[in-house]
Protein backbone atom coordinates (compact mmCIF):
# COMPACT_ATOMS: atom_id res chain seq x y z
CA UNK A 1 0.00 0.00 0.00
CA UNK A 2 1.12 3.53 -0.38
CA UNK A 3 2.31 5.68 2.41
CA UNK A 4 -0.56 7.93 3.54
CA UNK A 5 0.12 9.96 6.66
CA UNK A 6 -2.90 11.20 8.55
CA UNK A 7 -0.95 13.37 10.97
CA UNK A 8 0.48 15.23 7.96
CA UNK A 9 -3.06 15.74 6.65
CA UNK A 10 -4.16 17.31 9.96
CA UNK A 11 -1.07 19.46 10.02
CA UNK A 12 -1.62 20.97 6.57
CA UNK A 13 -5.41 21.17 6.71
CA UNK A 14 -5.61 24.72 8.18
CA UNK A 15 -3.47 26.09 5.36
CA UNK A 16 -5.55 24.29 2.75
CA UNK A 17 -8.76 25.60 4.25
CA UNK A 18 -7.41 29.13 4.16
CA UNK A 19 -6.46 28.61 0.52
CA UNK A 20 -9.96 27.26 -0.16
CA UNK A 21 -11.23 30.65 0.95
CA UNK A 22 -8.99 32.30 -1.64
CA UNK A 23 -10.13 29.89 -4.33
CA UNK A 24 -13.76 30.67 -3.55
CA UNK A 25 -13.09 34.40 -3.58
CA UNK A 26 -11.29 34.09 -6.92
CA UNK A 27 -14.11 32.02 -8.42
CA UNK A 28 -16.79 34.31 -6.99
CA UNK A 29 -15.15 37.55 -8.08
CA UNK A 30 -14.30 36.17 -11.52
CA UNK A 31 -17.86 34.96 -11.89
CA UNK A 32 -19.36 38.31 -10.93
CA UNK A 33 -17.22 40.05 -13.53
CA UNK A 34 -18.23 37.43 -16.09
CA UNK A 35 -21.93 37.75 -15.26
CA UNK A 36 -22.00 41.50 -15.78
CA UNK A 37 -19.56 41.71 -18.69
CA UNK A 38 -21.18 38.69 -20.37
CA UNK A 39 -24.53 40.45 -20.43
CA UNK A 40 -22.91 43.61 -21.78
CA UNK A 41 -21.25 41.59 -24.56
CA UNK A 42 -24.48 39.77 -25.38
CA UNK A 43 -26.32 43.08 -25.72
CA UNK A 44 -23.48 44.64 -27.70
CA UNK A 45 -23.70 41.74 -30.16
CA UNK A 46 -27.31 42.68 -30.78
CA UNK A 47 -26.99 46.40 -31.38
CA UNK A 48 -27.68 47.83 -34.78
CA UNK A 49 -24.22 49.40 -34.96
CA UNK A 50 -22.47 47.13 -37.40
CA UNK A 51 -18.98 48.03 -36.23
CA UNK A 52 -19.71 47.39 -32.58
CA UNK A 53 -21.30 44.11 -33.58
CA UNK A 54 -18.35 42.96 -35.59
CA UNK A 55 -15.74 44.06 -33.08
CA UNK A 56 -17.51 42.28 -30.23
CA UNK A 57 -18.07 39.14 -32.27
CA UNK A 58 -14.42 38.97 -33.22
CA UNK A 59 -13.33 39.60 -29.66
CA UNK A 60 -15.56 36.85 -28.28
CA UNK A 61 -14.37 34.42 -30.94
CA UNK A 62 -10.76 35.29 -30.22
CA UNK A 63 -11.06 34.82 -26.48
CA UNK A 64 -12.95 31.57 -26.85
CA UNK A 65 -10.39 30.11 -29.24
CA UNK A 66 -7.31 30.78 -27.13
CA UNK A 67 -6.40 29.04 -23.86
CA UNK A 68 -7.24 30.74 -20.59
CA UNK A 69 -3.77 30.07 -19.27
CA UNK A 70 -2.24 31.99 -22.13
CA UNK A 71 -4.56 34.92 -21.43
CA UNK A 72 -3.51 34.87 -17.78
CA UNK A 73 0.18 34.90 -18.72
CA UNK A 74 -0.39 37.62 -21.25
CA UNK A 75 -2.11 40.03 -18.91
CA UNK A 76 0.36 39.44 -16.10
CA UNK A 77 3.67 39.26 -17.99
CA UNK A 78 3.02 41.22 -21.20
CA UNK A 79 0.74 43.84 -19.68
CA UNK A 80 3.62 45.73 -18.05
CA UNK A 81 5.22 46.32 -21.47
CA UNK A 82 2.12 48.34 -22.33
CA UNK A 83 2.28 50.13 -19.02
CA UNK A 84 -0.41 47.95 -17.44
CA UNK A 85 1.03 46.81 -14.14
CA UNK A 86 -1.36 44.59 -12.24
CA UNK A 87 -1.05 42.40 -9.17
CA UNK A 88 -1.42 38.65 -9.62
CA UNK A 89 -4.91 38.83 -8.16
CA UNK A 90 -6.04 41.66 -10.41
CA UNK A 91 -4.55 40.05 -13.53
CA UNK A 92 -6.13 36.73 -12.64
CA UNK A 93 -9.58 38.18 -12.00
CA UNK A 94 -9.53 40.13 -15.23
CA UNK A 95 -8.37 37.13 -17.24
CA UNK A 96 -10.90 34.72 -15.77
CA UNK A 97 -13.69 37.30 -15.74
CA UNK A 98 -13.21 38.27 -19.38
CA UNK A 99 -12.66 34.68 -20.52
CA UNK A 100 -15.85 33.46 -18.93
CA UNK A 101 -17.76 36.58 -19.95
CA UNK A 102 -17.27 35.45 -23.53
CA UNK A 103 -18.81 32.08 -22.74
CA UNK A 104 -21.60 33.59 -20.68
CA UNK A 105 -22.43 36.02 -23.47
CA UNK A 106 -23.35 33.01 -25.59
CA UNK A 107 -25.55 31.70 -22.79
CA UNK A 108 -27.28 35.05 -22.44
CA UNK A 109 -27.67 35.21 -26.19
CA UNK A 110 -29.45 31.87 -26.14
CA UNK A 111 -31.68 33.11 -23.33
CA UNK A 112 -32.52 36.32 -25.18
CA UNK A 113 -33.24 34.38 -28.38
CA UNK A 114 -35.58 32.10 -26.43
CA UNK A 115 -37.90 35.01 -25.62
CA UNK A 116 -40.76 34.71 -28.12
CA UNK A 117 -41.16 37.32 -30.85
CA UNK A 118 -44.63 38.08 -29.51
CA UNK A 119 -43.08 39.52 -26.35
CA UNK A 120 -41.11 42.06 -28.37
CA UNK A 121 -44.22 42.91 -30.36
CA UNK A 122 -46.34 43.36 -27.25
CA UNK A 123 -43.64 45.69 -25.91
CA UNK A 124 -43.68 47.66 -29.16
CA UNK A 125 -47.47 47.86 -28.99
CA UNK A 126 -47.04 49.47 -25.56
CA UNK A 127 -44.68 51.93 -27.23
CA UNK A 128 -41.64 50.96 -25.16
CA UNK A 129 -38.16 52.13 -26.08
CA UNK A 130 -35.56 49.51 -26.99
CA UNK A 131 -33.98 49.96 -23.57
CA UNK A 132 -37.31 49.41 -21.84
CA UNK A 133 -37.97 46.31 -23.90
CA UNK A 134 -34.69 44.76 -22.77
CA UNK A 135 -34.87 45.93 -19.18
CA UNK A 136 -38.52 45.26 -18.43
CA UNK A 137 -39.55 42.46 -20.77
CA UNK A 138 -36.73 40.53 -22.40
CA UNK A 139 -33.93 40.28 -19.85
CA UNK A 140 -36.25 39.28 -16.98
CA UNK A 141 -37.33 36.33 -19.12
CA UNK A 142 -33.93 35.62 -20.66
CA UNK A 143 -32.16 35.23 -17.33
CA UNK A 144 -34.35 32.45 -15.92
CA UNK A 145 -33.95 30.72 -19.29
CA UNK A 146 -30.16 31.11 -19.02
CA UNK A 147 -29.78 29.94 -15.43
CA UNK A 148 -28.85 26.34 -16.19
CA UNK A 149 -26.07 27.44 -18.55
CA UNK A 150 -24.90 30.22 -16.24
CA UNK A 151 -24.72 27.72 -13.38
CA UNK A 152 -22.64 25.22 -15.33
CA UNK A 153 -20.03 27.88 -15.93
CA UNK A 154 -19.95 28.70 -12.21
CA UNK A 155 -18.63 25.20 -11.61
CA UNK A 156 -16.37 25.59 -14.64
CA UNK A 157 -14.83 28.81 -13.36
CA UNK A 158 -14.29 27.23 -9.96
CA UNK A 159 -12.38 24.34 -11.52
CA UNK A 160 -10.26 26.73 -13.59
CA UNK A 161 -9.03 28.79 -10.65
CA UNK A 162 -5.92 26.54 -10.20
CA UNK A 163 -4.57 28.17 -13.35
CA UNK A 164 -4.05 31.28 -11.27
CA UNK A 165 -1.33 29.42 -9.38
CA UNK A 166 1.00 30.00 -12.32
CA UNK A 167 1.14 33.72 -11.58
CA UNK A 168 1.34 33.22 -7.82
CA UNK A 169 -2.22 33.65 -6.59
CA UNK A 170 -2.34 31.75 -3.31
CA UNK A 171 -5.31 29.57 -4.13
CA UNK A 172 -5.59 25.84 -3.42
CA UNK A 173 -3.21 24.39 -5.98
CA UNK A 174 -0.60 27.04 -5.35
CA UNK A 175 -0.75 26.31 -1.62
CA UNK A 176 -0.60 22.55 -2.22
CA UNK A 177 2.47 23.06 -4.39
CA UNK A 178 4.11 25.13 -1.67
CA UNK A 179 3.32 22.58 1.02
CA UNK A 180 4.60 19.81 -1.23
CA UNK A 181 7.93 21.39 -1.92
CA UNK A 182 8.46 22.43 1.68
CA UNK A 183 7.86 18.91 2.94
CA UNK A 184 8.85 16.78 -0.05
CA UNK A 185 5.41 15.16 0.17
CA UNK A 186 2.84 15.71 -2.55
CA UNK A 187 0.43 12.82 -2.07
CA UNK A 188 -1.58 14.28 0.79
CA UNK A 189 -1.77 17.92 -0.40
CA UNK A 190 -2.83 17.05 -3.95
CA UNK A 191 -5.29 14.42 -2.77
CA UNK A 192 -6.82 16.89 -0.35
CA UNK A 193 -7.13 19.52 -3.06
CA UNK A 194 -8.97 17.01 -5.23
CA UNK A 195 -11.32 16.11 -2.39
CA UNK A 196 -12.01 19.76 -1.60
CA UNK A 197 -12.83 20.49 -5.25
CA UNK A 198 -15.14 17.49 -5.40
CA UNK A 199 -16.82 18.42 -2.13
CA UNK A 200 -17.64 21.88 -3.44
CA UNK A 201 -18.43 21.12 -7.11
CA UNK A 202 -20.93 18.37 -6.47
CA UNK A 203 -23.32 20.25 -4.18
CA UNK A 204 -22.85 23.41 -6.25
CA UNK A 205 -24.42 21.74 -9.28
CA UNK A 206 -27.42 20.74 -7.20
CA UNK A 207 -27.63 24.21 -5.73
CA UNK A 208 -27.69 25.76 -9.19
CA UNK A 209 -30.68 23.61 -10.12
CA UNK A 210 -32.47 24.62 -6.94
CA UNK A 211 -31.88 28.31 -7.60
CA UNK A 212 -33.13 27.88 -11.15
CA UNK A 213 -36.35 26.26 -9.96
CA UNK A 214 -36.85 28.94 -7.33
CA UNK A 215 -36.33 31.85 -9.74
CA UNK A 216 -38.67 30.33 -12.30
CA UNK A 217 -41.41 29.90 -9.71
CA UNK A 218 -40.92 33.42 -8.38
CA UNK A 219 -41.30 34.81 -11.87
CA UNK A 220 -44.44 32.82 -12.52
CA UNK A 221 -42.82 30.98 -15.42
Amino acid at each position, binding site marked *: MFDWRWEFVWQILPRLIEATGNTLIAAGAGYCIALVLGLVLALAQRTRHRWVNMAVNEFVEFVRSTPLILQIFFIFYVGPQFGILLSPWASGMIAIGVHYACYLSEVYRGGIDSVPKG*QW*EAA*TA*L*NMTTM*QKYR*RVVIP*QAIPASLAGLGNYLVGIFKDTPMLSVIGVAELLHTANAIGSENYRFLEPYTMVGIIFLAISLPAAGLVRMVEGYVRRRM*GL
Partner: protein
Amino acid sequence: MQDLSALPHELTGNTVPMISFKSVRKAYGDLVVINDLDLDIQVGETVSIIGPSGSGKTTVLRMLMTLEDVNGGVIYVDGKPLTHMVKNGKLVPANERHLRKQRVNIGMCFQHFNLFPHMTAIENCMEGPVQVLGLSKSEARERSEELLELVGMIDKKDQHPARLSGGQQQRVAIARALAMRPKVMLFDEVTSALDPEVIGEVTNVIRNLVAEHNLTMLLVTHQMGFARDISDRVCFFFGGKIEEQGSPDQLFGNPQRERTRQFLSAVREAI
Protein backbone atom coordinates in the same frame (compact mmCIF):
# COMPACT_ATOMS: atom_id res chain seq x y z
CA MET B 1 -37.91 54.17 -53.70
CA GLN B 2 -41.41 54.97 -54.80
CA ASP B 3 -42.49 58.54 -55.50
CA LEU B 4 -44.56 59.89 -52.62
CA SER B 5 -44.76 63.47 -53.87
CA ALA B 6 -48.43 63.08 -54.79
CA LEU B 7 -49.33 62.24 -51.20
CA PRO B 8 -50.19 64.95 -48.65
CA HIS B 9 -47.98 65.77 -45.68
CA GLU B 10 -51.04 65.99 -43.53
CA LEU B 11 -54.73 65.25 -44.00
CA THR B 12 -56.99 68.26 -43.57
CA GLY B 13 -60.67 69.03 -43.96
CA ASN B 14 -63.65 68.76 -41.69
CA THR B 15 -63.76 64.97 -41.56
CA VAL B 16 -60.22 63.74 -41.19
CA PRO B 17 -60.31 59.94 -40.96
CA MET B 18 -58.79 58.32 -37.90
CA ILE B 19 -56.88 55.91 -40.09
CA SER B 20 -56.03 56.32 -43.73
CA PHE B 21 -54.10 53.92 -45.94
CA LYS B 22 -53.01 55.60 -49.15
CA SER B 23 -51.63 53.39 -51.93
CA VAL B 24 -50.02 51.12 -49.36
CA ARG B 25 -47.92 48.27 -50.61
CA LYS B 26 -46.18 45.51 -48.70
CA ALA B 27 -44.06 42.75 -50.16
CA TYR B 28 -41.87 40.02 -48.74
CA GLY B 29 -39.26 39.59 -51.43
CA ASP B 30 -41.20 38.90 -54.61
CA LEU B 31 -44.41 38.06 -52.76
CA VAL B 32 -46.70 41.08 -52.82
CA VAL B 33 -48.87 40.80 -49.73
CA ILE B 34 -50.66 44.15 -49.79
CA ASN B 35 -51.25 45.67 -53.15
CA ASP B 36 -51.98 49.38 -53.49
CA LEU B 37 -54.38 49.49 -50.54
CA ASP B 38 -56.61 52.51 -49.98
CA LEU B 39 -58.70 52.37 -46.83
CA ASP B 40 -60.16 55.11 -44.64
CA ILE B 41 -61.59 54.47 -41.21
CA GLN B 42 -63.53 57.24 -39.54
CA VAL B 43 -63.32 58.34 -35.94
CA GLY B 44 -65.29 55.94 -33.74
CA GLU B 45 -65.92 53.52 -36.56
CA THR B 46 -65.69 49.75 -36.02
CA VAL B 47 -64.41 47.92 -39.07
CA SER B 48 -63.98 44.18 -39.45
CA ILE B 49 -61.63 42.56 -41.88
CA ILE B 50 -62.52 39.12 -43.14
CA GLY B 51 -61.01 37.00 -45.86
CA PRO B 52 -59.20 33.78 -46.63
CA SER B 53 -55.95 32.77 -44.98
CA GLY B 54 -52.97 34.60 -46.45
CA SER B 55 -55.05 37.44 -47.90
CA GLY B 56 -53.08 40.00 -45.87
CA LYS B 57 -55.44 40.74 -42.98
CA THR B 58 -52.85 40.44 -40.24
CA THR B 59 -50.37 42.41 -42.31
CA VAL B 60 -52.75 45.38 -42.41
CA LEU B 61 -52.91 45.48 -38.62
CA ARG B 62 -49.19 44.88 -38.17
CA MET B 63 -48.33 47.77 -40.48
CA LEU B 64 -50.64 50.01 -38.44
CA MET B 65 -48.97 48.89 -35.21
CA THR B 66 -45.62 49.62 -36.93
CA LEU B 67 -44.55 46.00 -36.45
CA GLU B 68 -43.96 45.90 -40.20
CA ASP B 69 -42.78 48.74 -42.37
CA VAL B 70 -44.50 49.55 -45.62
CA ASN B 71 -42.87 49.22 -49.03
CA GLY B 72 -44.99 51.86 -50.67
CA GLY B 73 -47.62 54.47 -49.90
CA VAL B 74 -48.30 56.12 -46.58
CA ILE B 75 -50.47 55.33 -43.57
CA TYR B 76 -51.97 58.31 -41.73
CA VAL B 77 -53.29 58.21 -38.20
CA ASP B 78 -55.40 61.10 -37.01
CA GLY B 79 -54.41 63.02 -40.12
CA LYS B 80 -50.66 62.74 -39.54
CA PRO B 81 -48.36 60.38 -41.37
CA LEU B 82 -47.48 57.33 -39.28
CA THR B 83 -45.12 55.39 -41.49
CA HIS B 84 -43.42 58.53 -42.75
CA MET B 85 -42.38 61.93 -41.54
CA VAL B 86 -41.83 65.20 -43.26
CA LYS B 87 -38.20 66.15 -43.73
CA ASN B 88 -36.96 68.94 -46.00
CA GLY B 89 -40.47 69.27 -47.38
CA LYS B 90 -40.63 65.60 -48.36
CA LEU B 91 -42.18 62.45 -46.92
CA VAL B 92 -39.41 60.11 -45.81
CA PRO B 93 -39.62 56.82 -43.88
CA ALA B 94 -40.24 57.49 -40.20
CA ASN B 95 -37.45 57.12 -37.69
CA GLU B 96 -37.92 55.49 -34.29
CA ARG B 97 -38.51 58.85 -32.63
CA HIS B 98 -41.35 59.69 -34.98
CA LEU B 99 -42.83 56.21 -34.58
CA ARG B 100 -42.81 56.52 -30.82
CA LYS B 101 -44.67 59.81 -31.06
CA GLN B 102 -47.33 58.40 -33.38
CA ARG B 103 -47.72 54.96 -31.78
CA VAL B 104 -49.30 56.41 -28.65
CA ASN B 105 -52.55 56.54 -30.61
CA ILE B 106 -52.68 52.82 -31.30
CA GLY B 107 -53.14 49.71 -29.17
CA MET B 108 -53.20 46.11 -30.26
CA CYS B 109 -54.36 42.72 -29.02
CA PHE B 110 -52.81 39.60 -30.44
CA GLN B 111 -54.06 36.12 -31.26
CA HIS B 112 -51.74 34.62 -28.65
CA PHE B 113 -52.26 37.37 -26.04
CA ASN B 114 -48.51 37.95 -25.53
CA LEU B 115 -48.90 38.89 -21.89
CA PHE B 116 -45.62 39.32 -20.02
CA PRO B 117 -45.32 36.01 -18.15
CA HIS B 118 -43.14 37.38 -15.35
CA MET B 119 -45.73 39.98 -14.34
CA THR B 120 -49.12 39.55 -12.69
CA ALA B 121 -52.28 40.63 -14.47
CA ILE B 122 -52.27 44.06 -12.90
CA GLU B 123 -48.52 44.50 -13.38
CA ASN B 124 -49.06 43.77 -17.06
CA CYS B 125 -51.63 46.56 -17.19
CA MET B 126 -49.53 49.01 -15.19
CA GLU B 127 -46.36 48.44 -17.16
CA GLY B 128 -47.11 50.73 -20.09
CA PRO B 129 -48.68 53.56 -18.08
CA VAL B 130 -45.79 53.62 -15.59
CA GLN B 131 -42.84 53.03 -17.90
CA VAL B 132 -44.02 54.69 -21.09
CA LEU B 133 -46.59 57.30 -20.07
CA GLY B 134 -44.79 58.16 -16.84
CA LEU B 135 -47.82 57.79 -14.56
CA SER B 136 -47.23 57.29 -10.86
CA LYS B 137 -47.69 53.74 -9.57
CA SER B 138 -50.87 54.67 -7.74
CA GLU B 139 -52.42 56.40 -10.75
CA ALA B 140 -51.52 53.44 -12.94
CA ARG B 141 -52.90 50.99 -10.39
CA GLU B 142 -56.17 52.86 -10.19
CA ARG B 143 -56.49 52.97 -13.97
CA SER B 144 -55.57 49.28 -14.28
CA GLU B 145 -58.03 48.19 -11.62
CA GLU B 146 -60.80 50.06 -13.39
CA LEU B 147 -59.99 48.31 -16.64
CA LEU B 148 -59.59 44.86 -15.07
CA GLU B 149 -63.01 45.47 -13.55
CA LEU B 150 -64.34 46.35 -17.00
CA VAL B 151 -63.06 43.08 -18.49
CA GLY B 152 -64.18 41.07 -15.47
CA MET B 153 -60.70 40.15 -14.29
CA ILE B 154 -60.37 42.17 -11.11
CA ASP B 155 -60.49 39.14 -8.82
CA LYS B 156 -57.53 37.59 -10.67
CA LYS B 157 -55.44 40.74 -10.75
CA ASP B 158 -52.55 39.27 -8.76
CA GLN B 159 -52.25 36.08 -10.82
CA HIS B 160 -49.49 35.43 -13.30
CA PRO B 161 -50.62 34.65 -16.87
CA ALA B 162 -49.57 31.00 -16.53
CA ARG B 163 -52.34 30.61 -13.95
CA LEU B 164 -55.03 32.08 -16.23
CA SER B 165 -57.11 30.45 -18.95
CA GLY B 166 -56.79 31.65 -22.54
CA GLY B 167 -59.98 33.68 -22.32
CA GLN B 168 -58.83 35.28 -19.09
CA GLN B 169 -55.42 36.09 -20.53
CA GLN B 170 -57.00 37.69 -23.55
CA ARG B 171 -59.21 39.86 -21.36
CA VAL B 172 -56.17 41.00 -19.39
CA ALA B 173 -54.43 41.73 -22.70
CA ILE B 174 -57.35 43.93 -23.73
CA ALA B 175 -57.14 45.79 -20.42
CA ARG B 176 -53.39 46.19 -20.86
CA ALA B 177 -53.85 47.76 -24.29
CA LEU B 178 -56.66 50.04 -23.09
CA ALA B 179 -54.56 51.23 -20.16
CA MET B 180 -52.51 53.23 -22.67
CA ARG B 181 -55.71 55.13 -23.63
CA PRO B 182 -55.24 54.61 -27.38
CA LYS B 183 -57.57 56.20 -29.91
CA VAL B 184 -57.38 53.14 -32.13
CA MET B 185 -57.62 49.51 -31.04
CA LEU B 186 -56.53 46.65 -33.26
CA PHE B 187 -57.69 43.09 -32.65
CA ASP B 188 -56.05 40.30 -34.63
CA GLU B 189 -58.11 37.13 -34.37
CA VAL B 190 -58.26 37.51 -30.61
CA THR B 191 -60.54 34.49 -30.23
CA SER B 192 -58.80 32.10 -32.62
CA ALA B 193 -56.56 30.52 -30.00
CA LEU B 194 -59.40 30.09 -27.51
CA ASP B 195 -61.52 27.10 -26.58
CA PRO B 196 -65.05 27.52 -27.96
CA GLU B 197 -66.65 27.84 -24.54
CA VAL B 198 -64.60 30.92 -23.57
CA ILE B 199 -64.87 32.81 -26.86
CA GLY B 200 -68.01 34.52 -25.60
CA GLU B 201 -66.32 36.10 -22.61
CA VAL B 202 -63.85 37.87 -24.89
CA THR B 203 -66.32 38.88 -27.60
CA ASN B 204 -68.62 40.28 -24.92
CA VAL B 205 -65.85 42.52 -23.66
CA ILE B 206 -65.31 43.80 -27.19
CA ARG B 207 -69.05 44.30 -27.71
CA ASN B 208 -69.10 46.49 -24.59
CA LEU B 209 -66.18 48.51 -25.88
CA VAL B 210 -67.98 49.13 -29.15
CA ALA B 211 -71.12 50.18 -27.33
CA GLU B 212 -69.64 52.39 -24.65
CA HIS B 213 -66.44 53.90 -25.97
CA ASN B 214 -65.55 56.24 -28.72
CA LEU B 215 -62.68 54.01 -29.82
CA THR B 216 -61.89 53.44 -33.44
CA MET B 217 -61.57 49.71 -33.90
CA LEU B 218 -60.16 47.49 -36.57
CA LEU B 219 -60.72 43.77 -36.11
CA VAL B 220 -59.59 40.74 -38.01
CA THR B 221 -61.90 37.86 -37.26
CA HIS B 222 -63.09 34.51 -38.55
CA GLN B 223 -66.33 34.78 -36.58
CA MET B 224 -68.80 36.06 -39.12
CA GLY B 225 -71.66 36.38 -36.63
CA PHE B 226 -69.56 38.52 -34.34
CA ALA B 227 -68.34 40.69 -37.22
CA ARG B 228 -71.92 41.17 -38.39
CA ASP B 229 -73.11 42.20 -34.91
CA ILE B 230 -70.51 44.75 -34.00
CA SER B 231 -69.21 46.27 -37.21
CA ASP B 232 -70.16 49.48 -38.89
CA ARG B 233 -68.42 48.19 -41.96
CA VAL B 234 -66.94 44.91 -43.13
CA CYS B 235 -64.04 44.60 -45.56
CA PHE B 236 -63.51 41.38 -47.45
CA PHE B 237 -59.83 40.94 -48.30
CA PHE B 238 -58.63 38.82 -51.15
CA GLY B 239 -55.08 38.62 -52.44
CA GLY B 240 -53.87 41.70 -50.60
CA LYS B 241 -56.69 43.94 -51.79
CA ILE B 242 -60.15 44.85 -50.60
CA GLU B 243 -62.33 42.78 -52.88
CA GLU B 244 -65.56 44.14 -51.46
CA GLN B 245 -66.69 46.25 -48.54
CA GLY B 246 -69.95 47.48 -47.12
CA SER B 247 -72.26 47.47 -44.16
CA PRO B 248 -72.58 44.07 -42.47
CA ASP B 249 -76.11 43.60 -43.85
CA GLN B 250 -74.94 44.44 -47.34
CA LEU B 251 -71.81 42.31 -47.31
CA PHE B 252 -73.23 39.27 -45.56
CA GLY B 253 -76.80 39.58 -46.88
CA ASN B 254 -76.20 40.63 -50.44
CA PRO B 255 -72.58 40.18 -51.51
CA GLN B 256 -71.86 41.54 -54.97
CA ARG B 257 -68.66 39.79 -55.90
CA GLU B 258 -68.26 36.17 -56.81
CA ARG B 259 -65.24 35.71 -54.53
CA THR B 260 -67.11 37.13 -51.55
CA ARG B 261 -69.99 34.73 -52.16
CA GLN B 262 -67.61 31.79 -52.47
CA PHE B 263 -65.78 32.73 -49.28
CA LEU B 264 -68.97 33.23 -47.28
CA SER B 265 -70.52 29.99 -48.41
CA ALA B 266 -67.29 28.11 -47.67
CA VAL B 267 -67.26 29.63 -44.18
CA ARG B 268 -70.91 28.75 -43.61
CA GLU B 269 -70.29 25.16 -44.69
CA ALA B 270 -67.41 24.90 -42.26
CA ILE B 271 -69.82 25.72 -39.42
